[in-house]
């Protein structure tokens, strides 16, 4: 028996490493994924790396725009064109600064518009939008700053998603376009209720459980209803598109164009829920910025 095991040990190892993960997957597939201690340990290792790469790339880009680009321009162009280039770059930098300031101003405005919620600003340090995986953003704020699971994440344009898992210094956001994300919404015009569920790709969501008899048209604005216990009411989720009213069945079919383009999000606001607010430290003061 031992000799047999020894002889086929490689085959047994391969079969073990194939069948055990498949069994674990099939056992867990029906349940919503929860982060285990092992997962969090891996994320504790990777999130500083993501932060490091993010800082490095930003640093290199800034160095390029601020120094190397100028040097190369000076070598190649005349004095006048160099001056024009410098001014153009300065203008671009100012435009970028202004755009960032505008984004932050809108975030602060949003935070001030919701005095009942404690807010925390955060920056995106990683994106994971793979076709077969969850649609996730990594933020540079974690449990150390009072971030907790299920906290809504928004920008001035609307809902981004909710906090999916947290490590000490970072957190993951399950985006509204993920298939596991389902947000209770109302049509702003008629107050009709429905759910918005992601389709697993950026820019894709669909409407669920909207009764066929409801008054709904393409272009209707969808806002959170506040009935799912996660998102406060009144946050913009998206607009109804490609509405189909079938002759039979209980519900309407429609796709939803999210108000927020998740591929362009750079800074976000995390909203503490009422329960979390009681537990949250001073870092979650209203209007706190990163």
């Amino acid at each position, binding site marked *: 028996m031992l000799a047999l095991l020894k002889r086929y040990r*490689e085959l047994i*190892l*391969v079969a073990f*490493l*194939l069948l*055990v*993960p*498949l*069994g*674990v*997957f*099939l056992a*867990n*597939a*029906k*349940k919503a*994924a929860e982060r*285990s201690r*092992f*997962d969090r340990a*891996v*994320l504790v*290792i*990777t*999130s500083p*790396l*993501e*932060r*490091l*790469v*993010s800082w490095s*790339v930003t640093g290199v*880009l800034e160095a390029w725009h601020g120094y190397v680009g100028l040097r190369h321009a000076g070598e190649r162009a005349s004095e006048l064109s160099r001056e024009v280039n410098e001014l153009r770059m300065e203008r671009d930098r100012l435009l970028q600064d202004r755009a960032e300031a505008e984004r932050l101003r809108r975030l602060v405005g949003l935070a001030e518009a919701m005095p009942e919620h404690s807010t925390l600003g955060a920056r995106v*340090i*990683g*994106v*994971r*939008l*793979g*076709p*077969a*995986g*969850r649609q*996730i953003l*990594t933020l540079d704020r974690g449990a150390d700053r009072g971030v907790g699971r299920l906290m809504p994440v928004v920008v001035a344009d609307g809902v981004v998603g909710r906090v*999916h*898992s947290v490590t000490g210094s970072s957190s*993951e956001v399950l985006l509204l376009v993920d*298939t596991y994300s389902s947000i209770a919404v109302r049509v702003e015009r008629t107050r009709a209720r429905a759910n918005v*569920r992601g*389709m*697993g*790709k*950026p820019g*894709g969501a669909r409407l*669920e459980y909207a009764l066929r008899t409801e008054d709904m048209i393409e272009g209707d604005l969808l806002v959170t209803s506040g009935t799912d216990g996660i998102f406060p009411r009144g946050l913009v989720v998206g607009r109804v598109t490609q509405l189909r009213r079938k002759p039979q069945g209980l519900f309407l079919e429609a796709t939803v164009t999210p108000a927020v383009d*998740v*591929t*362009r*999000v750079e800074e976000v606001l995390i909203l503490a829920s009422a329960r979390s607010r009681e537990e949250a430290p001073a870092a979650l003061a209203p209007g706190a910025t990163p």
Partner: protein
Amino acid sequence: MKILVHLACALLLAAVQAAALRFLGGGVVTAALLAPCLVYLGLHAGNVDGVLAAAGVGLVLDVMAATPKGLFTFLAVLLFLVARAVGASVDVRGRLPFALLSGLGALFLSFGGWLLLRWAVPPEVAPRATVILRAIVEAILTGALSPLLLSGLRRLDRLFEREEPGLLG
């Protein structure tokens, strides 16, 4: 030791991928940098350490993609075996064949993940067919980036190669 180095490399690549995609369109297109790692293991690693490292890389993929546990571990080991079978039957030494195999490997992971999720998870959360186009783009990008990884992985492997004294004397 070699397995641990491959795991550390996988963790580093996963983190680099997540951070770098932020600057490449914010996730409009994605790349699966761990697929070339698995293909490389299939082509160059030994049976036991290769399959163990592939399972480890699969675990990292599972955690980073936040899919139900075991999905990518299973697919990673399967991709390792497929790459091994291809390596045994076809000559995959140059960069181009490696890039081709890596692209197909990325497609294998995406499409395999899509199929298994469609089959196993509740239908309301199952991924839609529309993600297949993204998977194809991901495979092309992965194939294009894989030659860079190939040279890195070769250098990494050279650290563990020891010349036997006396053979050339």
